[in-house]
């Protein structure tokens, strides 16, 4: 690594000032599980690194009737062990419980995962389907941005010079809401997603109709995708395998993957469809309080 100045910021204002002064050569540090790896490999280099983890607003967790306020630097293990979050947003745990293994979850944060803006990030599709909002602070004050607009290119986020992500806000789930995140990896842990799919649904009271839905795909485009067409196609449809197949078809078409050492185009398009169906089944089970599929979203454990 190149040498750098380390600033242990105590307030949002302090971070913003340090980042604004440092420009491209300054970078905020949350869990560091991506940033430090990149700096050690020489892929990124900075003159100033600003630690966010001592700033109260960024480490704050508030769960209540009006939703979830999750500080940007709150590590996954906190989310994993928070009973209120588990109760209100069980699907968040689908992501925070599998990012990189236990040790990574001791440091990595959903906010950091979003800011790192990897196309294959495990934390972003689930934020998108929960309609999460990013709360940003900068030299010109504060602003918000929907999670699905936060990533602009592989590894590049929408933050301007001097800005940081302060928190993620998730609205309280509607009645009959259910969500899920599934990813495909060659092993059972520790891999980057070949494809990741987040799904959320709101069902009718009798649980037979999908009133609205959101679908998000990871690792099949330069940024995590919000596939509005899939949610539109699901709205008003009955809960059935035919409906799921329609959504899968749209997902396959929306996916624009590349072939690289982690997956091929054909494989990724195919998996986009498979995982969309499976995630839908889980989300619907959660919305209804039923258990018709296994933890991978397969009927009778066999697809």
């Amino acid at each position, binding site marked *: *690594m190149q*040498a750098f100045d380390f600033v242990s910021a105590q307030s949002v204002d302090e971070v913003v000032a340090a980042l604004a002064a440092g420009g491209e050569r300054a970078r905020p540090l949350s869990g560091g599980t991506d940033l430090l790896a990149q700096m050690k490999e020489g892929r990124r280099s900075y003159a100033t690194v600003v630690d966010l983890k001592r700033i109260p607003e960024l480490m704050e967790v508030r769960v209540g009737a009006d939703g979830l306020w999750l500080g940007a630097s709150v590590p996954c293990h906190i989310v994993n062990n928070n009973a209120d979050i588990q109760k209100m947003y069980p699907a968040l745990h689908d992501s925070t419980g599998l990012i990189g293994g236990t040790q990574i979850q001791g440091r990595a944060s959903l906010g950091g995962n979003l800011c790192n803006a990897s196309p294959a990030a495990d934390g972003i599709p689930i934020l998108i389907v929960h309609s999460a909002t990013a709360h940003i602070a900068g030299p010109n004050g504060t602003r918000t941005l929907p999670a699905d607009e936060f990533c602009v290119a592989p590894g590049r986020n929408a933050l301007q010079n001097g800005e940081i992500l302060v928190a993620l806000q998730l609205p309280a789930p509607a009645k009959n809401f259910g969500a899920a995140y599934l990813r*495909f990896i*060659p*092993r*059972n*842990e*520790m*891999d*980057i997603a*070949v494809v990741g799919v987040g799904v959320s649904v709101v069902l009718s009271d009798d649980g037979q109709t999908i009133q609205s839905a959101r679908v998000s795909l990871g690792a099949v485009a330069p940024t995590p995708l919000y596939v509005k067409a899939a949610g539109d196609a699901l709205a008003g449809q009955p809960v059935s395998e035919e409906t799921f197949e329609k959504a899968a078809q749209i997902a396959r078409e929306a996916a624009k993957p590349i072939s690289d*050492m*982690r*997956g*091929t185009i*054909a*494989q990724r398009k*195919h*998996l986009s469809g*498979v995982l969309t169906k499976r995630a839908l089944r889980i989300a619907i089970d959660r919305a209804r309080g039923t258990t018709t599929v296994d933890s*991978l979203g*397969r009927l009778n*454990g*066999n*697809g």
Partner: protein
Amino acid sequence: MAVTEKAVRTANGTNGHGNGNGNGHGPATSKPAEGYNVIGSRPVRPDGVDKVTGRAIYGADVRLQGLLYGKVLRSPHAHARILSIDTSKAEALPGVKAVVTGADLPTAADKVEDLGESAINLKYLSANILAHDKALYHGHAIAAVAAVDSHTAEEAIGLIEVQYEVLPPVMTVNDALADNAPILLDNLRTNEMGEMGTKPTNLAQHFRHQRGDMDAGFAAATVIVERNFRTETVHQGYIEPHTGTAQHNIDGQVTIWASTQGTFAVRNQTAEILGIPVSNIKVIPTEIGGGFGGKINVYLEPVAVMLSKKAGGKPVKLVMSRTEVLQATGPTSGSNIRMKIGADANGKITAAHAELYYEAGAFPGSPVGAAANVVLAPYAIDNLQVDGYDIVVNRPRSAAYRAPGGTNAAYATESVLNEIAEKLGLDQAHIRLLNGAKQGDRRPDGVQYTEPVGLLETVQAIAESDHYNTPLTGKYQGRGIACGYWNNWGGKSSATAILNADGTVSLNEASTDIGGSRASIAMQFAEAIGIGYEQVKPRVGDTDSVAYNDVTGGSRTTFSTGMAAYNMGVEMLAQMKERLADIWDVEAVEFAGGSFTGGDNSASFEQAAALIYKTGEPLMVSSTVFPRSFGPGFSTQLADVEVDPETGKVTILRYTIAQDVGRAIHPSYVEGQMQGGVVQGIGWALNEEYIYNEKGQLLNGSLLDYRMPTALDLPMIETILVEVPYPGHPYGVRGVGEVNIVPPVGAIANAIYNATGVRMEEVPMSPARLLAAMGEK
């Protein structure tokens, strides 16, 4: 020494966690085997406390006064001529104390050095340490620096300027053998079945084994199956990266601290590469964090010596990053294999022809020779031919990896055998019982199994196992069997034993302890002399402490060094009896039940030791051994898999390994070898491979994308220890470390076929490949 009858022993908890102790989870009981006092028990290893507390010193843990830190500059190109190297800016960086390149190496002799499990031309070994005129793989070492800290060293190598003439890379068997293929080594000529060729080539050697009449054999076959297989490059994957620390004193004496499988191998190679007398070099073993054959060749040690010399004698430590390990050490060969087997209507093999094309990496010396012994070795075949091809490509030079060459070969054999079984409607265990090798049969190169071997017993053990007799329960589940063979090895060992006044015995040996061998060596000594295991204090010494020792590898350590321990136990007991006879002035002294008796005198072992210490010269014995024959190992394995048809993902549901272990000295460590080899094989089968881009650069040089199995990817591994003792060892020991990695890829390929009807011809059988293959069906 009487050879007891063969025994079959299942490990603790093969069907769950129970062990009959009442506590469902407790460790296996530690009683010795029947007829023994120590052998077969499961004591705690003597280096155990150090290893669970973090006190044990591995290569990277060495700390010395004045230590400098080294870093290596590596080629970004797979194939390039090195036109010039300018190190001036690096030398000028404050904190840099030395810089070396290939130009600092003496001219290497064109001679072959025997390293035990493999042999290497020293010219090539030298060029692998620091490139001579060409960079031959992505990651090939070009230059090295030593500096006051590792960050300065890292900055320094960034300042070295190298001019390359980039050449087209040659990455696979097919690339290398194509007409007009770029030539890697200008002086390489094909050794074509003993005759040296005249044309420049990438084919280093073609050899052939044959016997019988293959044409007649195939003519007599009812069923013939011929398949082409491809396996990818895989790495040994030890968790500890390579290190080398050395101090080259002003007086020419060199000390090396090495994390190695063989201190004497390090000494010999370093002496040859640097042109230093062997006697000037002392190699001190640190603990070693895994080897599997990959820590026999030197990489960093000679570089550390060169840097230390240039830095005025300060010690220099080099530690590889994981990326360097993957780019530039090991791995084992990728291969193309054609396998053709014919069988009669009953399933008896009538002929076989195997063609093994192995990628050696940048320099000749792939394990294709050993592979040619392993392929078809579990079966009695009268008519066969094996052709082996050693081929250079722009990948890191291959190094031994646990039964080198065997896994690839067995994958092909076991796959084709199952196809034959299916065509004839035969059960996969049955066809192996029908054809399985016994004492008297020969392996492909003609070497005969002159003593009893346990192949059939292991097939039988699988066929009778609870696993085999439990039906599969799901649509996409499948079951596959495979067998494997490994020759094992004897090799040279030396050791000394010293009787201490308190009745303990200090045992000095030089077999670096990768997997608990201190314990099994101490146990054999204790058994031979008749004392308790706790009274023996084994120590692994440096190259000055005992005479020559071959490497800890080749499945030889428990066998050979154990033999030396046995000899010493017998000899020490004899000398103690003699001394006591003298002290007590009696004709004869007996030793039984822990007591020496002679006339009216008696003494416990401890009392005897004190008496001997007080009354005369110290008592020390030694033994040097070089067993010329040794027992081979066989293994039969059973894999149950479940395939997710929508994703191509394979889950291992259940796995059982049966292995002929001769005699299990310490069953826990024997089980551990079996389980470890199986899991490496599972990784090889499912996900491990080197992925290169079109320029020949390694893309997945990190443990994120070189995917080894995690705890979550596996079930418990059930072990069945079959004991067919090898008569040539006092306790019937056979090497156990390697044969276990030979069958898994074949077993899993067979299980995947059983689950999906898809015969995978490429390994790893990763989800993308399996999904595509299932789609094509």
